[in-house]
């Protein structure tokens, strides 16, 4: 698998990361070398091996259906650049 310049731009847009046109080539090379490194794993024969989901044999922890959190609106919006009446304020997004 190899990444071309257009894929670099697309990944940038999807991740909301601004990529200058003169950076595209260096990102392309870096991504390809990372992919190349990971692709070495393809040499391992995993036929019939269950995908591992946890290092320790354990099952998904569950929680009781109880309200144990919340009522801290001020804390929630404390880091917001802009807020009003404990709402986050963001540049207008209308569909």
């Amino acid at each position, binding site marked *: 698998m190899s990444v071309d310049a257009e894929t670099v731009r697309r990944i940038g847009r999807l991740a909301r990361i601004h990529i200058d046109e003169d950076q595209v080539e260096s990102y392309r090379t870096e991504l390809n070398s990372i992919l190349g490194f990971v692709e070495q794993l393809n040499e391992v024969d995993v036929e019939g091996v269950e995908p591992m989901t946890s290092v320790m044999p354990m099952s998904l922890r569950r929680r009781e259906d109880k309200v144990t959190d919340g009522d801290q609106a001020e804390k929630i919006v404390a880091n917001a650049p802009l807020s009003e009446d*404990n*709402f986050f304020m963001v540049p207008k997004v*209308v*569909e």
Partner: protein
Amino acid sequence: MSLVDTRTPTPKYFISGATGDWEMVIGMEVHAQVTSESKLFSGSSTEFGRPPNSNVSFVDAAMPGMLPVINEECVRQAVRTGLGLKAKINKRSLFDRKNYFYPDLPQGYQISQFKDPIVGEGVVKLDLGEDGEVEIGIERLHLEQDAGKSIHDQHPNMSFVDLNRSGVALMEIVSKPDLRSSAEARAYLSKLRTILRYLGTCDGNMEQGSMRADINVSVRRPGGEFGTRCEIKNVNSVRFAGQAIEYEARRQIDILEDGGTIDQETRLFDPKTGETRSMRSKEEAHDYRYFPDPDLLPLEFDDAFIAMLAQDLPELPDEKHDRLIAEYGVTPYDASVLVAERTSVDYFEDVARGRDGKLAANWVINELFGRLSKEGMSVEDSPVSAAQLGSIFDLISQGEISGKIAKDLFEIVWTEGGDPAKLVEERGMKQVSDTGAIEKIVDEIIAGNPDQVEKVREKPGLLGWFVGQVMKQTQGKANPQAVNEILKSKLGI
């Protein structure tokens, strides 16, 4: 999913275009909010209408380092719903991240289930009245997080974001493309809502957004290849669903008949205009880059867990429908009306138990529901209780009052309340079954109207006139059956 056509084209549903007939193909993705106290992966409340951002934990706000822990009740609710949809329950399911950016999605991804949902294929039966019954396939049901809410009308160039809904558990219920008309689509939504409400797994409150539908619509030549579909997002009422589908099918037919092609796209329905319009084109919106959520292990449970939930399942609408017919002798149509709401059918059964089921169905549906809907009330706030209505029926069956007087009595109980038996006594509403008294009145009327007596012997249909006279004299209290018999014997017809 592979598209399989399970239906035989029904000409009744065809839409005629300039170049011939067309058929709609509809599938739905219904998002139903799970009834639970707290959210899917956090301990904050799901209560509706709280002040902004007060039902938000650091998990819901996606603060760094916070980890999701699944709510076991939401798992139970999903399994219950699966059982109610006669669906395959998957004892092992996985959570995936669906990645996209939006201000009301603080994580930058929604935790959902992609490849391995908790519930697989099931079925919903629709009763289409005279068109019979049809089975609509369920493709799958999966658990996922709801997003927050953006409000756009508070500020000229800013949107306000409230995360109270962020992280609330949703069940996405995906149907197969088995629906063929807007009427079927409406019936499907209503039936699904009824099932969820019976199960108690979603309150079905569409105005509050507890249930919303994404509707896939395409058109084709009857029985032909599936066409390209458009998805109408976030429809929040059964009526709007019908309107949106009708509009969208017509729009697509017009394009195709003009030689155009349908672009697969997402559209919005505007209830004010009754039209659908294209959402701002997001060419990359569908690149969700799903991958397994590394914060969550597979969700696993055993057969005993499923069996325990199955055991406590309530009687479902279809079973109740069949039982009403078998036990109370009501018509299939009446049974469908009654089972639509659990409160309605409970009321009916309280009235009908040990009494005449057909009469009870007739009264409950026509008199009571008719009156309630006229006043914009629900069964829960009916001024006439099931016990009171039952006691009115007892008075009818004991011959104490006639059906006509019963309606007057119903009116009195509705407006004034009180014990029907006492009211009949106090207000002299008892019907006169005393044959002696009726005979006396009949004799008087026969004696006073020799012309009519002459005519009725030739035209027995005139008997009604005599009945009317007797009723007039007794203020409607004479037992109609007794009046008829006495009149017939005295007039010799």
